[in-house]
């Protein structure tokens, strides 16, 4: 941990350049972020303030670096921001190389004020010149010294970080303001390509993502967050409507990489590795590629042709996908012998977890695991059961099962969840749509016994719960109420309380498995205890979202690339740049209503698997995209 000499982070001034403050207080006060944990950082110049750790740090040099990065981010649409940055650069560089006097600082002040007050987008208002304001107030001496000494200090080597509330919230870190701006300007395909940099299944994600970005959107605090997910979906659909595209690859390398599992994590890794030029073979146990995207998410949320198209794109890059090839025995040597230089395990988490209730071990057609139920539906296995069905669990899988059951013609569909609605992990739209379609909910109930009469399931006994103190997940822990057991007459039960990976084959092959039943990997470079064997996705993280899987797939691809090049891969540290939603002076923002999209009529839904949510049209997409405030934020450090 560095000693902090000066900080204006978050507008809170901490100045110990005179060394008066005592040492204790100087240990990273005020939650000042540190880009490189334990690493040596002289100073940080950021949209949110200046931090100096070493008194001799070249603040002016960093400011120039900041402006040089900033001018790349400035869209140039409004005069003040881009011209202001250039002007500021001219002035400061002038002062630095002695060609202009520090009297120019007066003019600089005016420009800084103007840009912060009057720029068109919130990058201009919040980031473009913000650190200059602090600099002019607290580091005027540095400028004047420059002016005195004159002469070029030489260019300084620095690192930079660009983010935005939405980007910080997105597990894959997609450049959201970037692709929104391209949509605004009608450059839909450019926009899609930008999305693909971080997200190889835009059509899938555009439909089935839990969109944490939207809950981080600054507009959310003003009127309504942008429809980021739907916009991603729009550009994906636009390409499809234009007859599809192709994904570029680089000149082929001879190294080959094997991937186990054609789920999002596997596909993502395959895409990037192929793009780097490696040969890629994916082994998939099931008859269809897509993993949870194919077998977890029903058609009314994600029409399969969308997934198939995007998988196909990856195939056409030259990625070989061997379907129906389950790896029961992992033979790494064998693979190496047949020319594979690296192996990536992305087998996902496809097994249901136990509920811990009596009688759940007897597997029968009237008692199934949610994930299995969904998978078999996709595989076309008919469901004979009819009548009342109870789904246990409050996640998206539970919702999917419930809404499927409605469409299958069950008379009554009840979701039993041990916490209350507010704690439900399922996405709010899912819950909303499920309710609309007629799914019933039993909150604060947990099954204790599955009751059978001469083999046939006749009901479940549930116990009522009350909510206690929050647990490590932050949700309030449910506590059973003694003697509150009640009996529900039920014809079928679907258990959807969680998934876990099946890793016998990995364990047999000598891979280290954690107590959680997940593959152990080095968090830096995703490599397992066996050299050349990497792992990622749900089988490492436990059941997570699609976008997280894609993100991890990309990480692994980068790690494997580095490994094959013989380099040491260390991912950029996830720096905590503070509350993603905090945005100082938003200035005057005109309220513009969010573009709403149509939905399939409720009475239609239970009849078919037709997609419920409709997409935006071009005009709506442009209108929606132009609501983006462009909250880019910038940090440089050296």
């Amino acid at each position, binding site marked *: 941990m560095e000693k902090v000499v000066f900080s204006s982070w978050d507008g809170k001034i901490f100045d110990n350049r005179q060394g008066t403050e005592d040492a204790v207080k100087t240990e990273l006060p005020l939650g000042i972020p540190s880009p490189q944990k334990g690493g040596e950082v002289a100073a940080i110049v950021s949209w949110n303030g200046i931090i100096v750790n070493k008194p001799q740090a070249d603040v002016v040099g960093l400011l120039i670096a900041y402006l040089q990065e900033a001018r*790349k981010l400035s*869209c140039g*649409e409004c*005069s*003040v921001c881009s*011209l202001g940055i250039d002007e500021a650069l001219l002035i400061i560089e002038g002062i630095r190389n002695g060609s202009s006097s520090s009297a120019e600082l007066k003019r600089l002040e005016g420009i800084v004020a103007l840009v912060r007050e009057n720029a068109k987008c919130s990058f201009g208002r919040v980031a473009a010149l913000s650190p200059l304001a602090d600099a002019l107030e607290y580091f005027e001496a540095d400028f004047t010294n420059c002016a005195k000494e004159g002469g070029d200090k030489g260019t300084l080597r620095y690192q930079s970080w660009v983010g935005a509330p939405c980007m910080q919230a997105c597990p894959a870190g997609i*450049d959201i*303001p*970037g692709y929104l701006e391209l949509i605004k300007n009608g450059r839909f395909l450019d926009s899609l390509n930008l999305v693909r940099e971080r997200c190889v299944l835009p059509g899938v994600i555009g439909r089935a993502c839990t969109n944490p970005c939207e809950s981080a959107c600054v507009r959310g605090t003003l009127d309504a967050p942008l429809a980021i997910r739907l916009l991603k979906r729009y550009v994906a659909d636009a390409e499809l409507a234009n007859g599809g595209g192709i994904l570029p690859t680089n000149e082929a390398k001879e190294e080959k990489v094997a991937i186990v599992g054609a789920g999002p994590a596997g596909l993502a890794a395959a895409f990037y590795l192929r793009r780097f030029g490696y040969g890629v073979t994916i082994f998939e146990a099931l008859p269809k590629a897509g993993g949870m995207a194919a077998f977890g998410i029903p058609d009314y949320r994600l029409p399969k042709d969308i997934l198939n198209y995007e998988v196909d794109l990856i195939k056409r890059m030259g990625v070989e996908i061997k379907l129906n090839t389950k790896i029961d025995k992992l033979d790494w040597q064998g693979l190496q012998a047949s020319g594979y230089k690296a192996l990536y395990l992305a087998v996902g988490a496809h097994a249901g977890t136990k509920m811990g209730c009596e009688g759940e071990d007897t597997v029968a057609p009237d008692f199934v695991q949610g994930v299995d139920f969904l998978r078999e539906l996709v595989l076309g296995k008919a469901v004979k059961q009819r009548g009342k069905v109870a789904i246990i669990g409050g996640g998206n899988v539970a919702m999917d099962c419930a809404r499927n059951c409605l469409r299958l013609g069950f008379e009554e569909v009840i979701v039993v969840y041990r916490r209350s609605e507010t704690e439900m992990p399922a996405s709010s739209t899912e819950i909303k749509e499920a309710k609309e379609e007629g799914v019933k909910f039993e909150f604060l109930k947990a099954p204790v016994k599955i009751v059978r009469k001469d083999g046939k399931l006749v009901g479940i006994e549930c116990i009522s719960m009350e909510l206690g103190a929050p647990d490590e997940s932050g949700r309030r822990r449910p506590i059973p109420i003694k003697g509150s057991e009640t009996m529900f007459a039920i014809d079928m039960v679907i258990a959807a309380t969680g998934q876990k990976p099946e890793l016998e084959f990995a364990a047999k092959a000598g891979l280290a498995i954690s107590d959680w039943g997940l593959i152990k990997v080095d968090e830096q470079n995703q490599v397992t205890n066996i050299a050349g064997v990497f792992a990622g996705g749900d089988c490492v993280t436990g059941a997570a979202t699609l976008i997280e899987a894609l993100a991890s797939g990309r990480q692994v691809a980068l790690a494997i690339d580095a490994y094959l090049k013989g380099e040491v891969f260390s991912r950029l540290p996830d720096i905590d740049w503070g509350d993603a939603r905090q945005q100082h002076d938003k200035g005057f923002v005109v309220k513009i209503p969010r573009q709403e999209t149509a939905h399939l009529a409720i009475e239609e839904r239970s009849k078919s698997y037709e997609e419920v949510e409709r997409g935006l049209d071009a005009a709506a997409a442009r209108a929606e995209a132009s609501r983006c405030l462009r909250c880019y934020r910038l940090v440089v450090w050296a």
Partner: protein
Amino acid sequence: MIKFKIDGRTVEGKEGSTVLENAQALFIDIPTLCYHPELSPFGACRLCTVDVKTNAAWHLTAACETPIEENMEVVTNSERVEEARKLAAALLYRRYPKTKAIVDIANKLGVTDDEVPPKDDERECILCGLCVRTCREIVGVQALTIHDRGLGRELEQAKIDFKADACIGCGSCAYVCPTSFVKMEDYGNKRVIWNKAFTMAACSVCGRYFVPEEQLEFIAKKTKTPLQDLLICTSCR
């Protein structure tokens, strides 16, 4: 109608109308550069800056893209406003010291050489976006877009992108361009615009070359009229 205050006067304006529209109706002079009444507001030049008070806070904002709100207070002539306009004009003047449209308005707003010694710079496209909006909103093609900048898209200067295949050569962009940066020249049966050459169609009656073939095809497709029906110039219609 929406009641609001402008320079101390309480006035009424149509719902959805902008501060600028209302000001102009009241003969309040607000300088503009990228504004055009028939095009959507763009807020690029920041010369129409006004001071606006909504929910108890004053903000500088572009009058062209700010809709009036009930009880909104607008100040168009305060020192703060004029200072902001002048500074913005000064920045523009520094960048485009040879562009008449800029020089005129900069002088009008009191920018003088001794405050901002102009750089020697020939650039003429001032990125007002009028051509882009005209192309999209009036013509209905998207041959012109702002080449946006951002993360990983390192472009030295923002500029206008010309999609040659989309352009129909109607010349509306040249018509609307305030600095005549967009040039259109007709040479007999050739028209050159954005360095793309168009073949002009001749009027079937008088033989005058009157419109690019691409444009005719575009209109024919749009209006579903056979091409030959369009081959008559305005003189002979």
